[in-house]
């Protein structure tokens, strides 16, 4: 039984990281209908910034984590300003092509730095003995990661539910002309959506980096791993991203723990999420929490 709970705990850890990674992706899609293909690069970039500040500059990790959130906030905002602002109103496919270009540019920039070819790992700053309770153990890094993720997700939910600015961002995703008519600056909302996406991606990157170590390919892969998560959750739902992230994490861990190695099956942890995704989409084509068009008859 404790094996089951152990898998569940690690499923939630992995899942909450998926959730945080997916959040930024959803934010951009929700406000501007753009699929940001370069999301994985931003996640990796966030992790590298934290590492560089902590290890090379020597700032305490808590401060460098917060600093990396601020830095990526403004970096992502300038990316939107420089590359995407002028594309507002252009066909969505051109905008997506630009994010593909952005992905290549960021790849190129990262390969110029040592991070592109070398693996690093964060210095241990938390107790190394795992916390264990009734046979279920969780490392301090994982626990802190989950807590930070929960705080960030909670803050985002509050922002979109209760802050006028957050509500107006949802308004933009609902009806752009009407938002303009009440005085919302739509380009500014797009900029803010990118900035917040950058911030959450950096948070996710730093947490992943602490748990798995810094390997560019691994970090970048999270940009692809969020696809099944966001599609399952419904592309434009923040709660959807969180719930689907955790579901995906659990499926992966249980598949790895129970299915792999039995009956001659291997690598199901990588395949099963997509199988379940397809099955769920058969019944709920908008995803679990995706927006339905409201039609009054």
């Amino acid at each position, binding site marked *: 039984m404790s094996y089951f709970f152990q898998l569940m705990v690690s499923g939630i850890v992995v899942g909450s990281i998926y959730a945080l990674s997916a959040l930024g992706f959803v934010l951009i899609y929700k406000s501007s209908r753009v699929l940001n293909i370069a999301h994985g690069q931003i996640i990796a970039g966030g992790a590298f910034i934290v590492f560089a500040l902590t290890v090379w500059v020597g700032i305490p990790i808590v401060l460098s984590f917060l600093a990396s959130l601020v830095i990526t906030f403004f970096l992502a905002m300038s990316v939107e300003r420089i590359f995407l602002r002028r594309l507002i109103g252009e066909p969505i496919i051109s905008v997506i092509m630009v994010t593909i270009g952005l992905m290549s540019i960021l790849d190129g920039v990262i390969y110029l730095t040592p991070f592109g070819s070398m693996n690093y790992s964060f210095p241990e700053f938390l107790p190394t003995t795992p916390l264990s309770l009734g046979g279920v153990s969780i490392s301090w890094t994982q626990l802190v990661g989950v807590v930070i993720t929960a705080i960030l997700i909670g803050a985002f939910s509050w922002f979109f539910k209760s802050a006028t600015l957050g509500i107006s961002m949802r308004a933009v995703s609902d*009806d752009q002309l009407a938002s303009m*008519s009440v005085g919302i600056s739509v380009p500014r909302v797009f900029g803010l959506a990118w900035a917040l996406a950058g911030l959450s991606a950096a948070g996710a990157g730093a947490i992943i980096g602490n748990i798995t170590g810094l390997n560019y390919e691994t970090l970048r892969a999270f940009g692809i791993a969020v696809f099944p998560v966001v599609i399952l959750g419904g592309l434009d739902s923040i709660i959807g991203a969180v719930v689907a992230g955790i579901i995906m994490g659990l499926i992966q861990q249980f598949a790895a723990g129970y299915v792999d190695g039995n009956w001659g099956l291997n690598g199901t942890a990588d395949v099963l999420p997509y199988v379940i995704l397809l099955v769920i989409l058969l019944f709920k084509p908008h995803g679990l929490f995706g927006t339905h068009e409201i039609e009054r008859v």
Partner: protein
Amino acid sequence: MGAPAPTRLRADWRIDTMNTSLADSPLLEVNNIEVVYNDIIQVLRGVSLAVPKGRIVALLGTNGAGKTTTLRAISGLLKPENGFIREGYIKFNGVDITNQLGTDVVRLGAVMVPEGRRVFKHLTVEENIRVGSVTRRESLAVIRENHQGMYRHFPRLAEITNRLAGYCSGGEQQMIAIARALMAAPQMLMLDEPSLGLAPLLVKDIFRNIQVINQELKTTILVVEQNAKIALAISDYAYIMESGKIVLEGASRELQDNPDVKEFYMGITQSGRRKSFKEVKSYKRRKRWM
């Protein structure tokens, strides 16, 4: 009917029909604007109109006359449609707002309620109204009080604060859209066809509300309508548009009695008989104002 020469009531109405103190510069002044879409299609061909402070002004006309374009030009919402004011200028409160951004126009105090209501369907009634205050810099307490004021003004909305606006009825949505616009504390409220798609009884309600807003909140109102009868009944002054031009203007009371207006916009002949819709239409095609 031997159509009388179209009367152009360009008499100086401000002195004629209203208090002379209003003769100073109007709150909104649209001067001879020309609007083109996609650099080619000219929609407005020299539209001029004035909205004095504290009054209700109606802009009437049939489909495609350019009424909505005029409102969009004023509220800075031409850009998403690739439109541009090529000639002329618009002044609000003495400030030039020609080709200004929508956000800035709202900040200056002119807010539009778009055609077809356009509430935020996936936001609750409460959130819809709250979004209207996004440009304001006052304290939260002031805005909250203002928000409660909207519920006093539209008691129906207080009962459904948590419903998604997309599931509200047409009348409720129109109230939401108006309350949302009023949350910006505008000096001038522009309404684009508030009667569209509403039952006649609801239309009366909405127009009564518009009058109340004008009297109680002292908000200047510019209303675009196809329903000439009700718009003339509540407004002080009216303009009639056709193919991108103002073809007739005058105090609403006088326009109500104008035989052309009666025939073309209210479907009533000189003898007072109601004409069949079909007759009005075919006759109209041959009639030219200018």
